[in-house]
């Protein structure tokens, strides 16, 4: 079941990032060491319905800025981008959750309730290391940025 959940999370994250931010997500090449973020944000959305649980995404500041720029179609140095990196990650987690729940549903009519995305600032590289050391956290290479995500389900 955990493998299925991880596959669904990777598929959902890939689909949401490609469609909305034109960014490619893939499992990291073991031969190449990804640069890990030194500061970032952990965003989570809780869902309830036929399956309940939480979707989490840990995104570094540089990734958040680049994604916001791509989503908004603006230069990364634009003030609107600089001010909305966290907002862009929150919206991305909202979109990932929507894609993911459609895949977890037994029937297209299944109804899920989602909470509004919440963000917690992550102050340093130690926070990243502590997060990725937890069970069931997957790390992805998104256009060269390390991004971590987790799906926790409770039947």
């Amino acid at each position: 079941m955990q493998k299925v959940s991880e596959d669904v999370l990777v598929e959902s994250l890939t689909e949401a990032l490609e469609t909305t931010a034109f960014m490619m997500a893939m499992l990291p090449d073991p031969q190449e060491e990804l640069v890990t973020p030194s500061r970032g944000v952990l965003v989570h959305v809780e869902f309830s319905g036929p399956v309940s649980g939480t979707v989490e995404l840990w995104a570094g500041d540089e990734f958040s800025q680049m994604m916001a720029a791509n989503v908004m179609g603006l230069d990364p140095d634009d003030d609107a981008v600089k001010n909305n990196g966290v907002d862009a990650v929150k919206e991305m987690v909202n979109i990932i959750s929507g894609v993911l729940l459609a895949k977890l549903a037994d029937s297209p009519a299944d109804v899920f309730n989602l909470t509004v995305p919440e963000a917690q600032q992550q102050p340093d590289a130690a926070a990243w290391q502590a997060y990725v050391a937890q069970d069931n956290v997957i790390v992805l290479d998104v256009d060269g940025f390390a991004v971590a995500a987790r799906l926790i389900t409770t039947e």
Partner: protein
Amino acid sequence: MAFTVLIVDDSVTMRSVIKRTLEMANIAVGELLEAGNGDEALGIMQQKEVNLVLADINMPGMNGIEMIERMCADDRTRRIPVVVISTEASTARIEQLQEKGIVGYVHKPFSPEIIRDVIFEVIGACHAKS
């Protein structure tokens, strides 16, 4: 005829994407208004004449469903067409929204073409009404 469009979404990023899509689609938008939730949106609709509402569902404070219900209960706002732009994928919930009178639904993630096509369809319907 230039339309006054109200975008209701708690995400500044998503409001920016929708604005850019409207500009790219060459839609004749006279005034573009923004609200971060249903409550703010209803306040704007009491003060301004709005021709089209593009609304998210999952928002803090008053969500999109409650906003649509309140619009339906108010003579001043009940005829304003609402297009929902949301991550909601449940057919049951989309049908529920259609019963409440929404004129279009766009599922996130969306391509600019999809949102443009839905809005063109609604604008066409509005022209047919007027």
